[in-house]
């Protein structure tokens, strides 16, 4: 548990963790997020539309990475803004799981605005799956 305080240096690594995603996690997110697109749970359908198999919801990957950041902070409301580009699909095998590696680094500090830009690198097997994943976080 932490907060970003004045004097934090650009380039500082804040956290580096992994999170596993299996098919049950996709079904859970489909229900919780209200996104029932079959590419996220139906192998035959996913292959029919040209995917390598069932893939994770982009919003699940984004949500997991955002939760890593907001849980690292003492106060999750310190996350003022958060955006990503969905650059690569995350195939989720069955049986098995995809392992997301999430690393958060200080990208910029704006002392006047009282904010820090945290850059999130989210990768699977060394390949980045979210582009320009950045959050604006309140400086304490």
């Amino acid at each position: 548990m932490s907060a970003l305080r004045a004097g934090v240096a650009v380039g500082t690594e804040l956290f580096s963790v992994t999170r596993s995603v299996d098919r049950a996690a996709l079904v859970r997110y489909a229900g919780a997020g209200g996104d029932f697109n079959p590419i996220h749970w139906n192998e035959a359908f996913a292959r029919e539309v040209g995917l390598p198999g069932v893939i994770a919801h982009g919003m699940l990957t984004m949500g997991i990475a955002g939760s890593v950041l907001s849980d690292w902070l003492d106060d999750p409301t310190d996350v003022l803004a958060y955006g990503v580009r969905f650059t690569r699909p995350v195939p989720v095998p069955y049986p098995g799981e995809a392992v997301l590696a999430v690393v958060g680094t200080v990208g910029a500090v704006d002392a006047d605005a009282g904010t820090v830009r945290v850059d999130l690198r989210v990768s699977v097997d060394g390949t980045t799956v979210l582009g320009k994943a950045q959050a604006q976080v309140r400086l304490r």
Partner: protein
Amino acid sequence: MSGMTHVNADLVGRVFSGTPPYVVSAVKIAEFADAVGARSPLHHDPDTARASGHADVIAPVTFAVVVAQRAEAEYVDSPEAGIDFSRVVHANESFTAHRPIVAGDRLHTAVHVDSVTERAGIAMVTTRCEISDDTGAPVSTVTSTLAVRGADA
């Protein structure tokens, strides 16, 4: 060669606000928090949330997508939008919190069609959901870009 999409650029500038209000429940917040692995007690325990100055549990950072996507459907599913959802992939998403979403909130969403650009048989459709509470005060802004492939793209 790539086929054109049928996305209707004439709708740029239109605002869709016909979706009924979304009432946020503590159960839904906990369910969503579990699904994205958000473990802060502020999402799960009303006493901790109140001790931190909130009226009830607060939603995780990306929860507003639940509210936004319901409202976006009014635009995306409308025949005049010309969006074939089987040819859509999600390209970008961003959230700006004007204040935390709290259990008990009754949220209203105005979906602004901000841009439609087409290049090489792929239309990029950007919407901006302005989410506000019953008093009209801004709660969240959710910007989403969909990439829609043309027939041969």
